[in-house]
């Protein structure tokens, strides 16, 4: 069979291209490692007691966010998959909308509502007409605020992945549980939860990665975490190498979650059993019905309605800010970025995965999977490594690459490539894995060349999912901040950079309009992708 491959395919060229693209995609990882190696180990921050304090804060936040996202994700996923209650169809879609709210925008809303003389104060005044409204509002500590903002905006990962796991569970197995006389609680803890464990863990590891590399939310509330240390070492101590070193430590820690995730992903294939029969969802009655609806309703309210209505309230209360926006241009900028980036990312991912499938080279497969590390590196470090890399290359080859890639549209696309390539790569890879190798072999035996095989066998299967991968990339690009902020050209704004600009000048009210657009487009994309996602699963 190898002979057939070699006859039809210019193996060496493919090998070189994959090697080349994969090498480019690990530039940030590479620059971080190089820069970390020249760190001055007399580095003051390590000697500082605050270093441990910051790391402790990160771990505390991580623990509580994981705990809450587990509760917020698994319980509604379980209820929606196995029971009928008031509003179940609505919650199927609405609970996923929390993805549309970036944690930092949730943070703005939370602090605006609960701060002294904030929106909560106004609301209480409207209802009770009291002078003492501030004292009725809880004063959450910065850590609690950060945990809430991250949990309410990230639980979607756990919700979505546990739902998929629950949906895929064997009806026979559940029936067996019933016939063994298990109560619904026993069935949940002894059958459903253990079977869905891989999916839930994947969701939780994604939450962990996002939480650990978050800076926007924690810095807004003034909590110092490990990421604060990365920023402090650069912004205050002017030591970018130390900052790179700390990023590398963070990356190694996050890598642990990656390994757990990919290990579970591998195993999860064995857990997903075929649905032998149609599941009949049990109807909940009385208090149980009420509690299920109330829980999901509260979750939907806090994760989506609450931040969205705060933005809506601001845009109505301060309509003067509307005049400041070139709305058409902002939409166009965002959509052009989405379109070109996803086209580029998906094309590269298809080529690399197809090439790997043909070459079956273990080294190359491993090497190209390293490219997904970008997802775990803070965006700001990625942008700096792009800047440093092109500066270095320009002097090395004596050709000005800097004007092409720094502060340009191309540079931005490259930045997004480093950060979000994993979405395209993993998405395409998992679809390729669904295609049995024997199909390829039959195709070659029938005399089809590799392009024909790709277009007749692979493409029809891949093409169904390309749209959902496109949507996932689009959602990430709309919300992305640090890379866009640093690498964008002159006079170029997106919804997130504009919201950031207003937030930093303490005109948090003016962030409402770009935030609403950001939430609106993300919601549309999420609902479309959700439809595709579950259609495919069915």
């Amino acid at each position, binding site marked *: 069979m190898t002979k057939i491959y070699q006859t039809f395919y210019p193996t060496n060229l493919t090998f070189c291209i994959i090697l080349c693209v994969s090498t480019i995609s690990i530039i940030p990882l590479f620059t971080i490692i190089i820069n970390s190696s020249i760190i001055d180990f007399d580095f003051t921050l390590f000697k500082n007691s605050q270093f441990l304090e910051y790391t402790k804060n990160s771990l505390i936040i991580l623990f509580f966010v994981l705990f809450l996202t587990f509760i917020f994700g698994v319980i509604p996923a379980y209820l929606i998959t196995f029971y009928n209650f008031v509003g179940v169809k609505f919650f199927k879609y609405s609970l996923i909308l929390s993805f549309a709210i970036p944690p930092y925008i949730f943070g703005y809303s939370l602090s605006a509502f609960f701060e002294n003389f904030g929106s909560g104060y106004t609301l209480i005044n409207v209802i009770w007409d009291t002078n003492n409204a501030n004292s009725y509002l809880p004063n959450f500590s910065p850590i609690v605020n950060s945990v809430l903002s991250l949990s309410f905006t990230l639980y979607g990962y756990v919700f979505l992945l546990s739902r998929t796991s629950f949906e895929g569970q064997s009806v026979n197995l559940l029936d067996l549980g019933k016939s063994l006389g298990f109560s619904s609680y026993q069935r949940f803890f002894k059958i459903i939860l253990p079977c869905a464990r891989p999916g839930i863990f994947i969701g939780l590891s994604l939450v962990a990665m996002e939480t650990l590399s978050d800076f926007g939310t924690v810095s807004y509330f*003034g909590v110092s975490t490990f990421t604060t240390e990365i920023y402090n070492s650069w912004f205050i101590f002017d030591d970018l190498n130390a900052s790179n070193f700390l990023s590398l430590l963070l990356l190694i820690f996050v890598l642990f979650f990656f390994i757990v995730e990919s290990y579970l992903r591998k195993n999860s294939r064995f857990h997903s059993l075929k649905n032998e029969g149609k599941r009949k969802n049990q109807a909940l009655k009385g208090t149980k019905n009420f509690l299920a609806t109330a829980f999901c309703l509260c979750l939907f309210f806090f994760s989506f309605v609450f931040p969205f209505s705060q933005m809506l309230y601001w845009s109505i209360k301060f309509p003067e800010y509307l005049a400041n926006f070139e709305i058409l241009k902002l939409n166009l900028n965002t959509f052009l970025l989405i379109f070109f980036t996803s086209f580029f990312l998906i094309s590269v991912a298809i080529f690399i995965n197809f090439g790997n499938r043909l070459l079956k080279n273990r080294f190359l497969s491993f090497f190209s999977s390293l490219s997904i590390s970008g997802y775990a590196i803070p965006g700001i470090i990625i942008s700096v490594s792009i*800047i440093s890399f092109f*500066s270095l290359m320009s002097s090395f080859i004596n050709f000005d690459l*800097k004007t*092409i890639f720094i502060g*340009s549209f191309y540079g931005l696309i490259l930045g997004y490539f480093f950060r979000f390539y994993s979405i395209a790569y993993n998405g395409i890879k998992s679809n390729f894995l669904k295609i049995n190798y024997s199909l390829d072999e039959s195709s070659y035996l029938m005399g089809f060349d590799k392009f024909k095989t790709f277009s007749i066998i692979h493409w029809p299967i891949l093409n169904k999912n390309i749209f959902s991968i496109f949507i996932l990339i689009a959602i990430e690009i709309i919300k992305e901040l640090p890379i866009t902020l640093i690498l964008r050209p002159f*006079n170029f704004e997106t919804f997130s950079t504009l919201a950031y600009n207003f937030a930093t000048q*303490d005109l948090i009210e003016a962030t409402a309009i770009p935030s609403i657009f950001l939430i609106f487009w993300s919601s549309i994309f999420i609902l479309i992708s959700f439809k595709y996602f579950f259609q495919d699963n069915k």
Partner: protein
Amino acid sequence: MNFFAYLTVFFFSLHINADEINLYTTRHYDSDIKLYKDFTKQTGINVNIISGKAKPLEKRILEEGKSCKGDLFFLADAGRLYSSQKNGVFKKVSSKVLEKKIPVQFRSDYWFGITKRARIIFYNPKKISSEDLVNLSYEDLTDKRFNKSIAIRQSNNVYNQSLIASMIENNGLEFTRSWTKKFVTNFSRKPQGNDRAQILSVASGESKLAIANTYYYGLMLSGKKGKEQKEAAKKVRPFFPNQQNRGTHMNISGIGVLKYSPNPGNAIKFIEFLLTNAAQEHMVNNTFEYPMIESVDPPSLITKMGGSFKQDNITNVSSYGKWQTDAFKIMQEADWN
């Protein structure tokens, strides 16, 4: 603009015309953009802008080196200006106009102060009487009578670092170290939120004193933050410390011409424009900062707070940059989060 023309600009946005200047800025005020449009109207020179955080922008400028298309870098803290100067971002500029208009402690050979900000004390008259504050200096904030009374933001805030840096410059490292340790014990809560949140904490009675920049207070009083915040601001009084000695701590927003600026002539014209009466008036009336030039009065909301207070005209703002790292270390040692 039709779509294709827009696409062309989008992809080839790197082409720079002679009649343009390119500005990197960490100031994100909308009113600044209106001002730049006025500059274009007057001179025909377009102003292209990119905003962001100081260090990443500085890194971009430094790595772009001779390929840098930028002409100017506008920063909102004297310490940051000093640090960028030290890292070789700016070009030496000499302009008689600028030297005449800007007091020597608010400029260097490489950058020029454009607006001033005062970091002052705010108090709640219901919680603390104004007599208790007579002749108060920053140095007195360690006093036991202020135990658990003071709201201030975190140590990684650059305005706090500059304040502590100015104390090091005036009182020395050892004094400031022990002062900071005592000062932290007088905090009313764990540092959190921005300057406005500190003022609101005083308004609600949670804290007796707050340390914040004046323009946050101006913004609240102006009603731009809504009527609740305006009412809250009215519950709070400003107090200008150190009137008996060096004067109240002042910081600046400042700008410098980049080392490899392709249009240095236009860049200097732009800085000179920012220091005209009209531009200064526009800026301070919108941002509630203090003007750099004497011929312009601060906005009335700000003068009502105390127009004729004594500003610290002794400490050169460059020294903030010199001491900022030490200031941060001292704050960290004192468990100022």
